[in-house]
């Protein structure tokens, strides 16, 4: 049986395809999945072939007879499928976490494979990007009774556990990866040091691969594995490797010249050695440690930097799914216990990387993935239930110095002053301004070289005659922070008090000793400095605690709800991801790189502060490694449950209303990780592989083996509850397992605003190792329709408190499928709707051909189109780089939809990045599609009449000049009667029930695309309810890849 199409909006994004009259011979990367289960999940369904899925707590044993036999069986079936596409270059064969292969295929080959019953899916490979310590102390790991202590101390935390990092590679000279210690117990590579790590765990089957600038000697008993995967990347002729890259497990060159460092950062955060001195900007910030400092690290490099003129470095870094799946497969067979994946993607459960993680999880491997950096918008990535999806939050470490005023007052601010500044006279920047200087500029302290908007000619604002030898107060804003201290230095000043503008304090190395103080303190200091004979001194920085409450969910952290399945909550939990100090790669020029390759470069290691959900995920990966060490038989679902039910609430962020508030489950998930609580959670919510299978069957996306039944998303036994639509009432079932050593009686309570939430039974007594089931019945009372409500379920016992977040909403009187896709010239399709009233239903229907028009768009200046606000302005003004088409939408329009396809651009290889935006008649942005590449869709159902503007944005064109494209359009009204499109309606419908509708069409032409719409209305009131779209592609469609949101690089603007 074929996999069934996905539902609703996701399918709308995924399923469309360009109407190409002629076959396309260009080979593109795909991953072909076969129908049989991969080794990690096979449970022995085929007679004569025993199960290969490992038991909980057991490792996958590749040399076992069962695995060998089943692998042979899979290989034979794969060969017969590959024979159909004998000319296609195959880059990988998969059998452990995915059954299939990666290959370069033509359109005809894709069609040939799709027609086979033994092929489950053919999925295009699209490039993804990485989602770009003291945190161990912030998390309480080093407390006397903390998780490290429980595991035998810092020197044993992570012992025997292997953390696999799928990322950009590793810089092996960083002491975070050393396996020896010096006389002071500090990690060292010096052979005179004492070996601190013995041989890798006996279960370890991985290896150390050599390559450019990397030899087997780069690995040791700490960095036990290092491999790289680039077959998919190398098979794409449009990508040429950037000079900063190393074709080896080595992380590429960083700083301002390359894109490396990410993999070194994530791996050292998860499991880097303890006691490593971190040096940032030449300042020693003291010892840092990974979360699981004794765990072994295995690096799987899958991300590669290639030449791309649109980036200042001349390069861009991407990670291809074919390479990622190969890495995940290798990691599972190598015997890693935990995988960290700080790379984007995963907007559907059928995404191949997500599927690989499903099977990795079935084999007992815990997966931590980043939630994405596209927040606070509803963009959460990695939405599958079998992995932990991690949001980023702040921590409270701050590097601080004191400003000691001459009158004895003391103020503390952020600073990296390494040498105390003795008492010196003070002056305000306003007092110190050159005569005739601009008043604003005087406050902000511009250097001799700074230019900006409204300041076209660089000129100094401080008067050297007044500043010499003094400490100057300067206010933050407009020019770079570092430009202000530069201005003070240029004028002969000796120090700066930087007064914040409300954005938040930053500790960094300035041109003169600088303390960055908050707005309130700054006003007091400035008032003092304006007085008689003011003086001040500054102290050397220490690591202190910020006055700002932490943790707070970062604004860039992608928020829920889960856009694929509203019946499951994402993200799962939050962990530190702002200002994380860990190892990175050095900035080097080509000559220095050559020395690394030829082995003559002196070892160098560097650290840097990064932020991103990429940094949050390895915190969870490292702590999961600790929990695995403590509880080796726990399943990945149990580890995730322990982390979620013990999590604590974050502090409010700056968003004060709406669904994107950081404190809500869509921001923080279950909350901020609390590792010490997770050691002993009392109860866990476990999930067996069969439950995931039932869940996939319930979604209609798993064609195989649904004999065990199906479950709705909200009934998968997750440590969170989300119900996408409570129409009437919904019963949610959960099962808990007592993982403590004593029986305990729990009293459950549930609360959700706008709903009655009734838990049954009212008391649960659970013996050690036993399970108990409870239900939560949600019934809407006064919750507004289509508005998410928030609450939680708490099980309070005598020793443990188990809390899970709960969210739900209720829809309008109709709920109907959003999209039904049928590739036939004539068909009838019945579908079910949910109804919230008793009475009759009307339907307005129409269908028409989707037309395409040729056009060309110029390359835009990126800064004019890189945010929704910028795009709105660009569309309104029709600036260069944006092609605007006005479209009249008549009254009573059912749907207005526009699409772009990568195949319709000049290159057709994914390198052209066009975006699509829609302005309503008032000139406001009402829809925006800004994916990587040029597969874009904007669609409005029941739009108001008027003249809309469709804007095609030339975000990146390979030739830097322009790109041709075809705009696919359909404005469907009731006058459009293609295929005699019609919808059959029930005689009447009932409140709180369902009804069946059917749509039919016939006689459509082949080789085209059509869009139909059925808009439902309440019969008596005419109130417009849901609209179901029908996408009818009679052109033998080829699947599109998963849309990947363009990565927003999270970096400090410096201002």
């Amino acid at each position, binding site marked *: 049986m074929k996999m069934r199409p996905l539902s609703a909006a996701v399918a709308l994004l995924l399923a469309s395809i360009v109407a190409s009259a002629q076959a396309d011979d260009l080979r593109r990367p795909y991953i072909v999945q076969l129908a049989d289960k991969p080794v990690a999940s096979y449970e022995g369904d085929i007679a004569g072939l025993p199960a290969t899925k490992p038991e909980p707590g057991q490792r996958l044993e590749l040399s076992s007879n069962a695995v060998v036999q089943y692998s042979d069986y899979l290989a034979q079936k794969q060969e017969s499928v590959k024979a159909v596409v004998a000319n296609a270059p195959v880059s990988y064969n998969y059998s452990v976490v995915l059954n299939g292969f990666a290959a370069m295929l033509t359109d005809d080959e894709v069609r040939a494979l799709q027609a086979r019953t033994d092929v489950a899916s053919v999925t295009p490979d699209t490039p993804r990007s990485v989602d770009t310590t003291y945190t161990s102390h912030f998390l309480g790991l080093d407390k006397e009774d903390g998780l490290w202590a429980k595991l035998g101390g810092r020197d044993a935390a992570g012992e025997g556990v292997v953390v696999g990092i799928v990322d950009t590679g590793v810089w092996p000279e960083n002491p975070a990866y050393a396996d020896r210690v010096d006389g002071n117990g500090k990690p060292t590579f010096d052979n005179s040091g004492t070996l601190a790590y013995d041989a890798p765990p006996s279960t370890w089957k991985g290896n150390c691969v050599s390559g450019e600038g990397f030899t087997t000697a780069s690995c040791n008993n700490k960095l036990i594995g290092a491999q790289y995967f680039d077959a998919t990347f190398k098979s794409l002729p449009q990508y040429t490797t950037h000079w900063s890259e190393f074709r080896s497990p080595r992380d590429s060159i960083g700083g301002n010249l390359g894109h490396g460092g990410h993999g070194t950062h994530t791996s050292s955060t998860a499991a880097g050695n303890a006691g490593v001195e971190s040096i940032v900007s030449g300042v020693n910030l003291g010892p840092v440690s990974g979360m699981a400092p004794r765990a072994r690290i295995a690096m799987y490099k899958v991300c590669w930097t290639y030449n791309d003129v649109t980036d200042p470095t001349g390069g861009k870094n991407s990670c291809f799914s074919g390479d990622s799946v190969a890495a995940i497969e290798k990691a599972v067979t190598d015997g890693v216990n935990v995988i960290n994946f700080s790379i984007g993607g995963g907007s559907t459960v059928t995404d191949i990387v997500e599927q690989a993680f499903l099977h990795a999880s079935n084999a007992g491997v815990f997966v931590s993935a980043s939630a994405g950096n596209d927040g606070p918008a509803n963009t959460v990535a990695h939405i599958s239930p079998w992995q932990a999806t991690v949001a980023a939050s702040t921590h409270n470490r701050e590097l601080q110095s004191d400003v000691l005023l001459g009158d004895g007052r003391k103020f503390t601010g952020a600073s990296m002053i390494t040498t105390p500044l003795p008492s010196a006279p003070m002056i305000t920047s306003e007092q110190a301004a050159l005569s005739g200087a601009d008043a604003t500029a005087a406050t902000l302290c511009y250097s001799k070289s700074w230019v900006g908007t409204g300041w076209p000619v660089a000129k100094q604002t401080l008067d050297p005659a007044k500043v010499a030898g003094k400490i100057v107060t300067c206010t933050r804003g407009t020019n770079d922070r570092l430009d202000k201290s530069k201005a003070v230095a240029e004028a002969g000043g000796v120090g700066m008090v930087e007064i914040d503008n409300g954005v938040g304090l930053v500790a960094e190395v300035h041109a003169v000793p600088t303390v960055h103080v908050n707005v309130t303190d700054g006003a007091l200091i400035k008032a003092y400095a304006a007085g008689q004979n003011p003086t001040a001194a500054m102290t050397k920085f220490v690591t202190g605690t910020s006055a700002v409450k932490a943790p707070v969910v970062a604004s860039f952290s992608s928020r829920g709800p889960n856009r694929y399945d509203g019946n499951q909550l994402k993200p799962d939990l939050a962990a530190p991801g702002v200002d994380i100090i860990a190892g990175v790669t050095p900035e080097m020029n080509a000559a220095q790189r050559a020395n690394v390759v030829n082995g003559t470069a002196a070892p160098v290691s560097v650290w840097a502060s990064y932020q991103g959900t990429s940094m949050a995920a390895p915190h969870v990966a490292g702590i999961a490694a600790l929990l695995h060490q403590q509880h080796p038989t726990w399943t990945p679902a149990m580890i995730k449950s322990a982390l979620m039910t013990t999590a604590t609430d974050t502090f409010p962020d700056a968003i004060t209303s709406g669904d994107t508030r950081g404190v809500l489950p869509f921001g923080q998930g279950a909350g901020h990780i609390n590792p010490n609580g997770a050691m002993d959670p009392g109860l866990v919510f476990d999930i067996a592989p069969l439950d995931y299978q039932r869940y996939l069957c*319930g979604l209609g996306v798993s064609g195989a083996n649904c004999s065990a039944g*199906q479950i709705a998303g909200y009934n998968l036994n997750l440590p969170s509850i989300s119900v996408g639509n409570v129409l009437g009432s919904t019963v949610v079932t959960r099962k808990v397992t007592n993982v403590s050593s004593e029986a305990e009686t729990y009293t459950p309570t549930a609360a959700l605003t706008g709903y009655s939430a009734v838990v049954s039974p009212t008391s649960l007594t659970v013996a050690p190792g036993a399970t108990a089931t409870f239900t939560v019945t949600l019934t809407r009372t006064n919750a507004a329709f289509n508005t998410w409500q928030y609450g939680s379920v708490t099980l309070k016992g005598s020793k443990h408190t188990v809390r899970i977040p709960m969210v739900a909403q209720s829809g309008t009187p109709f709920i109907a499928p959003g999209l039904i896709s049928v590739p036939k010239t004539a068909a009838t399709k019945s579908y079910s709707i949910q109804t919230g009233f008793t009475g009759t239903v009307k339907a307005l229907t129409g269908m028409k051909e989707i037309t395409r028009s040729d056009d060309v768009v110029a390359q835009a200046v990126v800064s004019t189109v890189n945010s929704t606000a910028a795009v709105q302005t660009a569309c309104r003004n029709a600036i260069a780089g944006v092609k605007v088409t006005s479209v009249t939408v008549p009254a009573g329009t059912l749907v207005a939809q526009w699409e772009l396809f990568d195949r319709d651009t000049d290159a057709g290889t994914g390198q052209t990045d066009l975006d699509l935006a829609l302005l309503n008649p008032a000139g406001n942005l009402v829809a925006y599609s800004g994916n990587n590449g040029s597969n874009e869709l904007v669609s409005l159902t029941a739009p108001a009449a008027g003249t809309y503007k469709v804007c095609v944005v030339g975000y990146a064109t390979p030739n830097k000049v322009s790109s041709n494209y075809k705009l696919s359009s359909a404005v469907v009204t009731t006058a459009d009667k293609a295929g005699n499109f019609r919808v059959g309606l029930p005689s009447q419908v009932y409140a709180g029930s369902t009804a069946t509708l059917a749509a039919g069409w016939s006689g459509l032409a082949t080789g085209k695309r059509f869009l139909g719409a059925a808009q439902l209305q309440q019969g008596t009131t005419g109130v417009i309810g849901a609209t179901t779209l029908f996408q009818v592609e009679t052109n033998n469609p080829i699947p599109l890849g998963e849309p990947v949101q363009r990565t927003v690089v999270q970096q400090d603007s410096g201002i």
Partner: protein
Amino acid sequence: MIRTSHSVPAQRGSLQKFLGAALLAAAAAAAPAQAGVITFDDPNNYGPGMVLGGDLYQEDGYAIGFFANVLGDGIGDLVGMMYDGEGASCDASSQICPANKSGIYFGALNDSYLDMVSVATPGFKIKSFDAGFIGSYSSLSSYPNPVGLVRLLGYKVGGGTVTQDFWFDNTTQAKNFQLNTFNTSGAFANTVLSEVAIYGFACNTVNTSCQAFATDRGQFGIDNIVTTDVPEPATAAIVGLGLLGVAAARRRKTKA
């Protein structure tokens, strides 16, 4: 388990009313005395697609009308689908339809009923049929077990009615959504009928009471209705031809 059934009996004679009582009376005609099977597979008669209230299907000497149990009989409303046996016409994201047979089966939707008469003989008996529940959620866990039932309401040749219920109550829930064979038994199996109405009940998730004509969720697939004709040689086969003419005209109207 208490199975409380609440139902509104189908209004007798929707088919007869529609066809004209005189025509049906005349249809008490001479015909072969052999068992019939309604397979819904006759391509000349009907293909896959929507079935609207008032549509007619004829096969093997029997006529079946499809109606909603509302004022006006639901003429022109969606009362069913002729489904292909693999269920491809059923939207898997929002429904579960039987998909375990080849060929076409009839799906009774939205609390509709089938009204069946013999064109060729004045009376017949129902021996067996295949049926399975059609669900209006994609997830099996959304349903209670038993999920519903099909009721056959027989009108005796001599007057009066007889009913038999057929429960979808297999231990494995998935099996209730497949077409499986049900045999009539007891009094129902032995009664000669002039007409039979077939309709579905959906059981309530909360308290397992089952309802017909009250939720739009009484839905089922039905196929291979095996009958035994009761021989009673008599009049005009020509009347049967006339009826076919009416049916064909009706079909043209609704399928246009």
